[in-house]
């Protein structure tokens, strides 16, 4: 029982922390983000495992994590409100080449982040060639080019 309670508590805490920290937190796989992710996972592991290093305990922890995750995904399918609460909504941050500054500031995104995605895919050179840029629920930025940019259509950014 202790293992199940620990996993549920840890899952809820991590979900809360990462929802509060915003969409962009750890959405970029920079070297330091990777390091931070490892440190967090190591810290989490210690709190979950405690003194019990048995395989039974490990099985129970993994099973509970997967069960909580699958259970929540099923609930999210049934409830749009829960889906938004847990995963947020996408946000338009550039409209017809015009950066929406207030939204970008609140999400800690700057024009250079948008252009990094735009250069990578669909290969745009200037912000004016961006019809729309969307900060997705995953924290990634997707770019839709203008028709004049001479590209075929929207492609996934980072």
């Amino acid at each position, binding site marked *: 029982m202790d293992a199940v309670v620990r996993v549920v*508590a840890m899952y809820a805490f991590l979900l*809360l*922390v990462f*929802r*509060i*920290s*915003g969409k962009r937190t750890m959405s970029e796989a920079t070297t330091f983000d990777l390091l931070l992710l490892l440190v967090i996972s190591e810290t989490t592991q210690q709190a979950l495992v*405690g*003194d019990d290093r048995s395989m039974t305990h490990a099985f129970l922890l993994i099973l509970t994590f997967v069960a909580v995750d699958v259970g929540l995904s099923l609930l999210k399918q049934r409830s749009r409100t829960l889906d*938004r609460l847990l995963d*947020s*909504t*996408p*946000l*338009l941050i550039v*409209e017809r080449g015009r950066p*929406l500054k207030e939204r970008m500031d*609140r999400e800690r995104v700057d024009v250079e982040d948008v252009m990094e995605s735009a250069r990578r895919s669909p290969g745009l050179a200037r912000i004016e060639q961006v*019809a*729309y840029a*969307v900060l997705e629920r995953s924290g990634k930025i997707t770019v*839709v080019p203008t028709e004049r940019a001479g590209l075929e259509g*929207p492609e996934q950014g980072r």
Partner: protein
Amino acid sequence: MASSGESGQRPGDGPPPGVQVDQDMRFQRREWAVQRIGWVAGVLVLAASLAGALGHGPLSHAEAEGLDGALHVKYERIVRSNRPVDLTFSLAAGTGNETVLWLSREMMERMSVEAVRPEPVRWWATPARTGLVFAHAPDTAPGDRLAVALRVEVQTVGGLGGEVGVEGRDGGVRVWMLALP
């Protein structure tokens, strides 16, 4: 675009034309507000933690003394479950060759004693108390202070209250700890 007259809506808040995005600016603004509250709460928790509100700090340190001064105890008011924590006692030596420090049953039931310094010469237990018997050094005079440290681990989560005292002296000292998970 949604009309700006709609409650809480601003120009540009509606779904953008030309791209299918499930954008909801009212929800998004509430999310930003909750995030800011969360950031403040996080900072407050960190500040409280530095002050010892989650253990190991000034707010957590506690001391208590018996009415007759025979026992003085220093302990942590806030501890973590299954983590070692020290209780340090200053006992007034009795008239015999030994002094007994006792802990009430409700304390002993919910924590384990990992180490005792100095080692007691023996332990005893009654339904209400567990006693640790310490032998006096040859030059110990009655009333001299003996220093004893217990390293304990609280095995449960939540409030833990109990009494500690010196055998043969009036009353005990009430100790209360909060064990965090």
